[in-house]
């Protein structure tokens, strides 16, 4: 034991609070950026269908191609950020190999497929070349961009599920191992995407503002409910593992006196964050306010001419969701931490 450190009472019932994972910042950026990009594409593509079904009035100038281009750029930025997570980014292409078993591998495939289809949609829309493929029913013309866009929507839905399942499939990380994780990723990504769509719509005056702002507020509130549910769920989680099951000694009092490494190890650096309880609490409160409450209030007061207000709502919501994803890691308590209760 390091001299000068006061002996601390250790008990067999382990509360691992403050023992969450160290947030991987590149992954925080990746998941939030692509979530917003996917939501933005969904917003503009769904608006296009509502125009075709005569639910929304057609825009004077159609900006959905440019919005899809922005979605593509957000996904590309996320992809770029993800490379910083890898020890060997030059081998990243190998990650597509194990799609049969690995959700990460599936994401690695779904992300470029989604990007490619988004890019195709953008090119059809921005160029004048958008040939009619067939007419649905009697009056709905299905063009090449509509078909490619439909493929992009399928791909991005798959991408939402793959991204979230990377975390939700790890049964040892009980805070992540829940359908709420998937729901949260979809709702939060969708909410930020629709909020960004309100800003673009207000700036370009393309007449889709009312639809976007209604959906943005609805998705943000739905995401708040879903995220709050997972916070409540995680608050009361107890690990089925204990020091007793970890080393197989069934005595109620076990105290670790050496962890086998004096200067720490990968185990203490990757799975145990160094933030105090007050920082964690501040993060939780600020993401609930910034990511959900502030954007709803701002969007409520926005109109189709106040694009600055909508852009502000998006920026604040995105910052809030960055903190949320950071907190998502802090929240996850890895069972391996049971073996690392004391540095000595």
């Amino acid at each position, binding site marked *: 034991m390091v001299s000068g450190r006061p002996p601390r009472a250790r008990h067999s019932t382990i509360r691992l609070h403050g023992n969450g994972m160290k947030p991987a910042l590149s992954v925080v950026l990746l998941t939030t950026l692509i979530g917003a990009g996917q939501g933005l594409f969904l917003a503009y593509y769904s608006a296009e269908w509502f125009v075709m079904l005569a639910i929304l009035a057609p825009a004077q100038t159609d900006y959905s191609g440019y919005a899809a281009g922005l979605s593509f750029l957000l996904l590309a930025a996320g992809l770029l950020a993800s490379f910083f997570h890898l020890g060997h980014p030059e081998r990243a292409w190998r990650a597509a190999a194990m799609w049969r078993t690995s959700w990460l591998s599936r994401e690695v495939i779904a992300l470029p497929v989604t990007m490619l289809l988004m890019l195709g949609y953008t090119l059809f829309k921005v160029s004048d070349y958008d040939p009619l493929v067939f007419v649905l029913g009697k009056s709905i013309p299905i063009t090449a961009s509509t078909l490619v866009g439909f493929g992009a929507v399928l791909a991005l839905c798959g991408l939402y599920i793959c991204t979230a399942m990377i975390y939700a499939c790890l049964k040892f990380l009980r805070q992540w191992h829940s359908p709420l994780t998937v729901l949260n990723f979809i709702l939060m990504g969708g909410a930020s995407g629709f909020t960004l769509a309100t800003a673009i719509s207000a700036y370009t005056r393309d007449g889709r503002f009312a639809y976007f702002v209604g959906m943005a507020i609805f998705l943000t509130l739905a995401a708040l409910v879903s995220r709050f549910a997972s916070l409540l769920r995680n608050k009361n989680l107890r690990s089925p593992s204990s020091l007793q*099951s970890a080393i197989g000694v069934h005595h109620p009092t076990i105290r*670790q006196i050496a962890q086998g490494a004096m200067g720490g190890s*990968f185990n203490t650096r990757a799975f145990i964050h160094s933030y105090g309880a007050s920082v964690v609490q501040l993060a939780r409160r600020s993401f609930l306010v910034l990511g959900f409450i502030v954007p709803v209030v701002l969007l409520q007061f926005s109109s189709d001419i106040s694009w600055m207000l909508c852009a502000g709502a998006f920026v604040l919501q995105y910052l809030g969701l960055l903190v949320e994803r950071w907190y998502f890691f802090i929240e996850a308590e890895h069972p391996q931490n049971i073996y690392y209760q004391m540095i000595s």
Partner: protein
Amino acid sequence: MTQLALVIDLNTCVGCHACVTSCKEWNTSGEAGPMVDRNPYAAEPTGTFFNRVQSFEVGNFPHTQTVHFPKSCLHCEDPPCVPVCPTGASYKRPEDGIVLVDYDKCIGCEYCSWACPYGAREIDEQQKVMKKCTLCVDRIYDQSLPEDERKPVCVLSCPTSARIYGDIHDPESEASKAINDAGGYQLMPEWGTAPANHYLPRRKVDITVHQEDLQRVDNPLRKEDRGQRAPTTRTTLDDSTSW
């Protein structure tokens, strides 16, 4: 099917770390390249190890026992780290059940380490790939070694023979017999990973000690008898030497 594994006897382990140092020595000298070793002789030594010995104090003073607990990859029969690997760098060998990492395929995404509940995997901070115990796969099949040395180096180095190596699917192996006879168990069985490595529990060793064992009735050196012995007059070896 063969499932090679270690059986670690917590009743005999004395926590000497010989398995730790010999493991590091063997694996850092192998063809996979050195394992990180920062500040090895300074205040905060840290680095990549495949095997560590932790120590726990069990019980309330004064009725305590120290349990030394060697910890390495358990080569699970249903390893959660393998299916999550996106590149296939992590794999379980069908022929002998060893879980290995192909360092040339690993992209260093650390996802497998999130999926291992035991914390058995460590990223090598220089090579940027995930590393873990290989069960000395480069020793156990080496035909150039004498047959009795074709074992993991931690097993060979253990001075108390607390580490037993063998095929736990072969009921006649030393490892299987040790598990069956001494109550071998798996770590964190609640996660269903079916670790191949087993641990043998601390056992109470009772010896009945009779008074005669401590003090022989016919002990020629009994204190109370000394005065009755005839004094020696001859010079003994002790009298003529001075060391």
